[in-house]
């Protein structure tokens, strides 16, 4: 099951030591020094996960992320250099599933990568017969598709997982921490913005009017729930 990871990072030292650390953790690692090369590598190798620096020469990480998203739901973890909220939000907007802040220690990075890969595997092995209904949405958990009136709606892996997590128990309130734990595999105090941004993205795709959501509701002071 040696997962193959594509690491796109421009700084040679960081690229080399990260690759060493990931290989030591049992992954197969390919690297690329800039965005254009990274995109090329991704198209050729189709790795199981992409680890993407935000600030890249030639083609920046956000652009690479959008390009990959156009073609695939492969898990993408961004490496952000800045602590700015805006950086995190923009990365997630571009379709990243998670982000790791620089500097990072290897065990932390490895844990996040494993969590992202585990979700991918978990969902791949989900009950083949399951199909959920949320309002006018039909969610096919086996085929990992969401449709309304026969029209398919494209969701990323994380967005899909988040929608399923809520839709499986309509009416139940999930706190942001619970969602971080269940959907992202965080088992520690994480960043709740991740949840807010992802909820926003899902709403933008599945709600008729994202400004007044009818399917995914905010529970004041607590978190989110799916409409019953």
């Amino acid at each position, binding site marked *: 099951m040696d997962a193959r990871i594509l690491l796109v990072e421009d*700084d040679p*030292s*960081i690229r080399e*030591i*990260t690759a*060493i*650390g990931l290989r*030591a953790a049992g992954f197969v690692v390919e690297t690329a020094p800039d965005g254009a090369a990274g995109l090329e590598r991704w198209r050729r190798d189709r790795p199981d996960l992409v680890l993407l620096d935000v600030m890249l020469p030639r083609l920046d990480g956000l652009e690479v992320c959008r390009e990959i998203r156009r073609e695939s739901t492969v898990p993408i973890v961004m490496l952000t*250099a*800045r*602590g*700015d*909220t805006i950086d995190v*939000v923009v990365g997630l*907007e571009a379709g990243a599933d998670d982000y790791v802040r*620089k*500097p*990072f*220690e*290897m*065990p932390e*990075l490895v844990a996040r990568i494993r969590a992202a890969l585990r979700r991918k595997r978990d969902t791949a092995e989900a009950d083949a017969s399951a199909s959920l209904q949320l309002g006018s949405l039909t969610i096919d958990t086996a085929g990992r598709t969401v449709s309304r009136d026969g029209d398919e709606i494209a969701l990323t892996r994380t967005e899909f997982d988040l929608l399923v997590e809520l839709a499986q128990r309509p009416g139940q*309130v999930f706190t942001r921490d619970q969602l971080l734990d269940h959907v992202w595999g965080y088992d*520690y*105090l994480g*960043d*709740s*913005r991740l949840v*807010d*941004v992802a*909820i*926003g*993205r*899902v*709403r*933008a795709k599945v*709600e008729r*009017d*994202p*400004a*007044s*959501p*009818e399917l*995914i*509701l*905010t*529970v*004041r*002071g*607590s978190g989110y*729930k799916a409409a019953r």
Partner: protein
Amino acid sequence: MRGIRTRLALALVALVAVTVLAIGVGTYLFVDARLRDGLLGEANRQAQFNLSVLVPERLPGGVTREDYANSGLREAFRLRGGVETIVDFADGDPDVSTAPLTGALAGFPTSLTSLAATGRLGFAWVDVAGQPSLVVGGRQGTGPIFYFVFPAGSIDQAIAQLRLGLLAAGLVAVALALATAGIFARGILRPVDSGSAAAARIAAGDLSARVPAGGADEFARFAAEFNRMADSLAATVARLKDSEQQNQQFVADVAHELRTPLTALVAEASIIEAGLDGLPPAARRAAELLVADVRRLRSLVEDLMELSRFDANAEQAMLEPTDLGEAIRSIVRARLPAAELHLPQTPIVVDADVRRLDRILGNVLDNARQHGGDGSVDVEVRGSGSDALVSVADRGPGVAPDALGQLFERFYKADPSRHAGSSGLGLAIAAEHAALLGGTLEATNRTGGGLAVTLRIPIATSVTGPLPGGDGGDTGSGDAGSGSDAATAPTEPARPSA
């Protein structure tokens, strides 16, 4: 300034009043004299005529009491201008032309009677029978002395009217002067007012305040000087700000540039740490130190970056009604589970940003852990008036009283032999976050030893009571689903229950 205005007005009013008074008195005296002169001249002419023409004509053989009484002279005199007559026959029983004049002779001044007795014409202004009158007296040869009494009431009346008129005119003049003085003073003082308004704005920090300059008077010079001063002040402040900004930018740049090698270092150190057991003893100790130092460097750089974001005003709080006790409970559970928690009976709701509460408490708890010795750490949440207090108290040695205030300064080290791993910026950062929440951090020494650091933030006032779960299609919640603003936490009142 009010003083100057009053003084200016008073001076002007006084000037006008004195002028009006002088003119009034002059006019009064002049008119009075002219009126009396006029009457006196007329009276003299008439008395002369009466004595030298009328009397000899009617009584050619000398004047005796009986002749006079029958001569009809009394009536003749009266017809010529309402003149009444007293004739003194030097026998103590003067003849009077009308009853009220009886006895009036005794009231005449001797200057009049003695002059009249010599045969020349004398006059006096006297009240006769209660009426202001002009009395002209004279005699023909050794005949009786005739006193002609001319009514002078009209003069006094005219004078009284004049006095009234002058008084009214004077009052009007003073009132006009007062009004003029006000306008005048305002005009003069307007530049002073604008000058002091500009100075007040500068004092309040608005360095763009200037005095409108114009004209060529003393105020124009003042305005020019004032504006020159303000220009140079603004330039100095701008220069200082620039250099401070450059400093802050430098720190931000340095921290940013350090981040790339630091990222490599941290990753490398974490791998070395994982392989410590495989190293020979001598290298192993060095590797351990290396790992610890890299951690220290990391926290220093990250703290510097965090502070430089505050310096650049790049930090904004996303406030959301929060159950403070619950928030603190989960933070303490994650950060320092060994701490003893004291939570309030009823939930305290504050407008806070949980991530910032986490940064504040995290740093304060770190400080307590590093300097608190082996004793327990107490964390208490309670309300105090309109504020909520979160205090973290350790059982360490505390801090010298005069150093308490410096505890939140950057790189302040109360304990020179401080623990490795802390940058000296933790409490300064915590204080910045506290300020962003509209709160403060303060440090006190505990009775019985130890340091207490207390966060004070205002209790939310906008609580509208518990809401039922779910917001349906609440468009006003600010929780738009477009994603671009989804990082803005929904603003929500208190949760229904703890």
